[in-house]
């Protein structure tokens, strides 16, 4: 596993950057269809969910593989989710509403998928801010971990946002919902036979850097 790590590390970087590269290329080459703004909005929304699910997959992966090295990518996946969510939100505020705050306010009050989506984003902000080593130190591992359990709520709200946003084809949001459910169920099960999992405190940035 140790020898694989640099490769996996590169792969994770690529995975995090690929959607952005693809969308930039697509916009440049006019390959995003007739309504590129909508396409980018939808795709960044889906990538937010995918990276959220990937973040939540780290703990089950550690349990299933017995390898704790997965943890080194969790921060990056979480920040990727935040990054794509930020583009998603910015496109809504700018190119959908053109910063018409009255209209945005009405949207938040009247449309539950907007309410829930914005709430999910609001909860992501403190997690993104406190993702640095300095903040982990300042908060202490226990408080930090408790704060970052918000990710469960964010993921549920994210899937709900998608579910309520789609017109009628509920199959894609259902797929995300089912994956999330599986990830949750994997957490509940703690087989007595397997050796206890050592929960590592989040790694300081400097350490991750030196390993990469």
């Amino acid at each position, binding site marked *: 596993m140790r020898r694989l790590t640099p490769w996996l590390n590169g792969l994770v970087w690529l995975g995090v950057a690929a959607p952005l590269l693809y969308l930039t290329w697509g916009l440049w080459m006019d390959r995003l*269809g*007739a309504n590129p703004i*909508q396409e980018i909005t939808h795709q960044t929304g889906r990538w937010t969910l995918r990276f959220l699910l990937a973040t939540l997959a780290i703990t089950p992966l550690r349990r299933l593989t017995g390898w704790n090295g997965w943890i080194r990518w969790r921060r990056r996946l979480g920040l990727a989710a935040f990054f794509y969510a930020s583009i998603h939100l910015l496109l809504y505020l700018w190119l959908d509403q053109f910063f018409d705050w009255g*209209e945005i306010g009405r*949207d938040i009050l009247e449309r539950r998928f907007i309410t829930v989506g914005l709430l999910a984003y609001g909860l992501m902000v403190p997690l993104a801010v406190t993702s640095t080593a300095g903040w982990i130190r300042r908060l202490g591992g226990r408080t930090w971990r408790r704060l970052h359990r918000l990710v469960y709520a964010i993921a549920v709200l994210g899937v709900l946002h998608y579910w309520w946003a789609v017109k009628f084809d509920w199959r894609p949001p259902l797929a995300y919902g089912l994956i999330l459910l599986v990830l949750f169920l994997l957490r509940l099960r703690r087989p007595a036979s397997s050796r206890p999992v050592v929960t590592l405190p989040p790694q300081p940035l400097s350490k991750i850097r030196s390993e990469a």
Partner: protein
Amino acid sequence: MLIRTETPIPSSEITDERLYWNRREWLRQAGLLAGAALTGLLTPGCRAEGQQVRHKANPGPYDTDEPWTSYEDITTYNNFYEFGTGKRDPARNAHRLRTRPWTIRVEGLCHRPATYELEDFVKPYTLEERVYRLRCVEGWSMVIPWLGFPLAEVIRRAEPMASAKFVEFTTLYDPEQMPGQKAPILDWPYVEGLRLDEALHPLTILAVGLYGKMLPNQNGAPIRLVVPWKYGFKSIKSIVRIRFVEKQPITTWMKAAPHEYGFYSNVNPNVDHPRWSQKTERRIGEFRKRKTLMFNGYADQVAHLYEGMDLRKYF
């Protein structure tokens, strides 16, 4: 002898390769071919009935002079769930649809019900180009030069009875040709309807082409409805049945989500969709959104149809 083993490449294979390597080029070619076919299909009728295809040298009374949305965008950005729910799915999958032979059944409360072959159905009418705005309920819009004829003429030919109050339209149901129908997301086949006076309105047309070419499958070939003051989904595609009925038909989207999609579905900036405002729209190809116009800008022509009606209730 050896030289003779080289068989000529069948033309079908050349087309396939072009399709494979360059879909845009293929679409253009297909459009040209279709245009030729359309001319071929309609020319006998033209000569016999004095029919002609009018172009936009002099805009008609119903035309908008706004710039046309590109042929590429009109034919690759479609809602046609019979071929998939993605916007690009119809252009990818609609080639499975066989539009010849095609029969249309006119039935219900009328004195002259009949089953027509498409060619016979279209033949008596003069094709006109109508440049209409199309506003989708999802908040985007296009300007499309349709090629068609007024639905009113079809209705007059059928001689509806006095008891007929509505017209109901049905799309083909054939999951083999329309793979999207294999998914249970809507109650297939697609059904739409108009009140009789809406159907008789001169703006309402049956279209068989766009951009002077034969209608591409993803746009509702071989024949579709166009009702420009209503949201796009009212303009049902690939019609196989036109039926005169007394009661307001239950349309597919009403059945799927009655609180979101009403029978009338007139473009109305003052009545929001439950999940988004209808005040603005993005014209395909434009960056900024524009204000949505009452009845999609056709208020002068159609507002009288709804006088005294509460358009919030009858949305």
